[in-house]
């Protein structure tokens, strides 16, 4: 028995990989969904967007890549649906070079579903290199940072940009961020200086890093990882399901939560079993 427990503690990690693979694949094929509550940080994002009126304009910084799609794409899509359903206008830019080919088609498709017109109801400005410098430039002069949008039209002449010259002019900024540069750089570089209202949707790994900013009210809302995206989706789809623009939309993160459930359970089980084996095979010298 003792030998078996020692072998268990030192097992080839490929067994762990196999167990993890099964705990991901099985719920994908046979989802078991559990109800979940909405966290106050995600609720804060939803409530603030609900306060917006038709014709208001928000700036979205889409800073993620294909690797973080599962965590952030659901929030991104739900957010676009939410904003377009409220007839809020969107101006979007990106600090990651790999983001535009991914986020722009989604933006265009969702806008089309809501009957929105590029240039009048939304604009995609494209990617800007420079990390923190780019963010400072956005805050100073967004039109200078993007003389033309991703379609080649002059940014200053876009109807949606009328009255908006810099980040300071937008009522709200939503940072969908998977790392650097992202939410942290927005908070450090421009939030305090210009008193901007920023919400963040970020990966689960980065979310704990931004909790201090939420607590000190430098962020008014924080959505962390797939659970956060699922909660936000739940709110949007509950209230806007009947909106014609959402007729083709589906919740993505909610159903995927069953994978999270099983994955987390597997890791917890593994840790607990590992510790049980450790205690049972521990000699007094190990104390």
């Amino acid at each position, binding site marked *: 028995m003792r030998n078996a427990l020692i072998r268990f503690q030192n097992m080839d*990690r490929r067994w*762990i*990989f196999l*167990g*993890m*693979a099964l705990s*991901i694949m099985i719920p994908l094929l046979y989802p078991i*969904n*559990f*109800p*979940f*509550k909405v*966290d106050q940080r995600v609720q804060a994002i939803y409530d603030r967007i609900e306060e917006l009126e038709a014709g208001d304009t928000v700036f979205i910084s889409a800073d993620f*890549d*294909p*690797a*973080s*799609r599962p965590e952030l794409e659901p929030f991104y899509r739900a957010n676009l649906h939410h904003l377009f359903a409220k007839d809020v206008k969107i101006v979007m830019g990106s600090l990651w070079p*790999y983001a*535009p*080919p*991914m986020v722009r*088609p989604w933006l265009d498709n969702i806008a089309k579903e809501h009957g929105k017109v590029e240039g009048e109801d939304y604009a995609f400005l494209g990617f800007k*290199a*420079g990390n923190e*410098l780019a963010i400072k430039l956005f805050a100073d002069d967004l039109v200078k940072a993007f003389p033309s949008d991703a379609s*080649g039209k002059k940014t200053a002449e876009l109807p949606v940009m009328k009255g908006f010259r810099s980040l300071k002019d937008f009522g709200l900024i939503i940072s969908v961020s998977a790392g650097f540069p992202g939410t942290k750089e927005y908070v450090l570089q421009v939030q305090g200086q210009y008193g901007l209202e920023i919400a963040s949707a970020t990966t*689960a790994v980065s979310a*704990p*890093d931004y*909790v*201090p900013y939420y*607590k000190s009210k430098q962020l008014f809302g924080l959505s962390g990882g797939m*659970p956060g995206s699922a909660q936000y989706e739940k709110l949007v789809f509950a209230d806007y399901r009947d909106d014609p623009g959402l007729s083709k939309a589906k919740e993505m993160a909610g159903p995927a*939560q069953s994978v*999270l*459930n099983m*994955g*987390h*359970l*597997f*890791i*917890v089980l*593994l*840790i*607990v079993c*590992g*510790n049980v084996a*450790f*205690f049972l095979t521990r000699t007094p010298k*190990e104390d």
Partner: protein
Amino acid sequence: MKRTIPLIVGFIIGVVMIGEFFIPHYRYRAMTAEFLEWGLILGAGAFILGLVNLVQVNLPKVQRRETDWQYKAAMLVALVITLIVGFAAGESRQADGQTFKWIYDYAFTPLNATMFALLAFYIASAAFRAFRARNMEATVLLAAAILVMIARVPIGESIPVIGDYLPQFMNWIMDVPNTAARRAIFIGAALGAIATGLRVILGMERSHLGGGES
């Protein structure tokens, strides 16, 4: 001389850039903005050097048929194809139907996502190996990790009796001990960064300059 001039230049530029935070004069800000532009240009220029280095290191290994030379050959072929396709397509390279977009959608995106997905497996094996209650601190860490992991997912909220309290406890862990620890790390790292930056600017640290003498 080879090290003195870079030291002097580093000192001057360093002091000037620190000064930007305190000096609002538009001429001063125009000068610092220019320095930052130079930095960006240098960084962009270094990409050419990086490309040359990639070829310089890997091509001889392919030619000499060293271990796993096939992977290096695949890398060089992919490099050349992507460069040619990207340059040929120009500004419209990311438009639908373009080969460059195809490479992004069907090669880069899946590979990128796959590497990130490896984390799920590696975290399982790392957690299994590392989370052992060897002492009191490790036990506290272990307990907190298990609680947060369970509370983060819907199944945790569905546990009878404690399910309602788990998310609150998780939020407390994130809001109080986690925030306190992260703030301590931020402050310590920031002070360390100030000291390191000043050491470099004042010329106390010289190892980054290269050269032949200490």
